[in-house]
């Protein structure tokens, strides 16, 4: 244990200030309307903040290979999760519209419309 690398305090202080600043930016950015970019900007800042916490506070920057594999592995899993669920959701019923009249398909599947519940009350 002796000889264990101790991260200098200055890193922590700078990260702390950076995080507070980015929180301020997040709130500030939310006051303006960038249209479709709103979410992207908010997420981008959140990712930068999260990376700061991970790399400096959690010390990932100084960790060896396998910790990175674990972490990136879990992030990749989350992305897979997102990707496939959306792959289903965004194309649900699409093939029936495309093939309607083509094979004379009468589909029982009704697409969930954006902004509306699939079945009225």
């Amino acid at each position, binding site marked *: *244990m002796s000889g264990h690398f101790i991260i200098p305090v200055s890193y922590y202080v700078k990260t702390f200030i950076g995080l507070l600043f980015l929180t301020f930016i997040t709130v500030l950015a939310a006051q303006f309307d960038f249209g479709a970019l709103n979410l992207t900007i908010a997420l981008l800042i959140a990712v930068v903040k999260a990376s700061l916490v991970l790399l400096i506070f959690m010390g990932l920057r100084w960790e060896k290979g396998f910790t990175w594999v674990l*972490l990136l592995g879990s992030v990749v899993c989350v992305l897979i999760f997102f990707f496939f669920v959306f792959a289903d959701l965004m194309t649900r019923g699409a093939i029936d519209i495309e093939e309607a009249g083509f094979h004379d398909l009468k589909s029982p599947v009704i697409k969930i419309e954006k902004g509306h519940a699939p079945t009225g009350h």
Partner: protein
Amino acid sequence: MATTGTSFIKHEVAHHFDNAEQEFESAKLGMWAFMAQEILFFSALFVAYAIFRYLYPEAFLEASSLLSWKMGAFNTAVLITSSFTMVMAVNSAQTSQKKKTFNFLLVTILLAALFLVVKYFEYMSKFHHGIFPPNYFNAMAVFEQVPIFFGIYFVITGLHALHILIGIGLIIWIMRRTARGEFHADYFTPVELVGLYWHFVDLVWIFLFPLLYLVG
């Protein structure tokens, strides 16, 4: 070095490890593996959030405007500060500064408690306006999917608050051990691990804040 001081207790390496280095590295690896599972644990909630925000953007906009972004921003700052005091506690433990470690941990707990207090008032003001999880939801809303947002909101912030409560318990536990002088330059594994856990709690909130409070 540090262990020679009378106020510290020397750490015994568990019998199945060869040396302290192996013990420390194993513990840290195990904790990171646990962090990976925590990420996946929360992921399903984020996926659910993304789907319904995609399906019902107007409802999410309306629901989000019912939350107080000021309270959310304040709590974000509180958690970030607590993360900072936590790393300072770890750093003090690594450099055998017992008193400082203890005090930083104490501040961390106080900030955690402050977070929960703010959260409590937030929940209460929601309940006051009839904003409950869907089965008990009785507030006025333009869009009929607003309850879904709050369903997700209550589950995700509730689980996050539960993580904070567990974190407080863990910090109390390491504070007691710090007071006994168990942590010093030669042994600080539990402090470091609790630190990792605490930053994870912060990490989740960093995403929750813009997603829940700042739907624009």
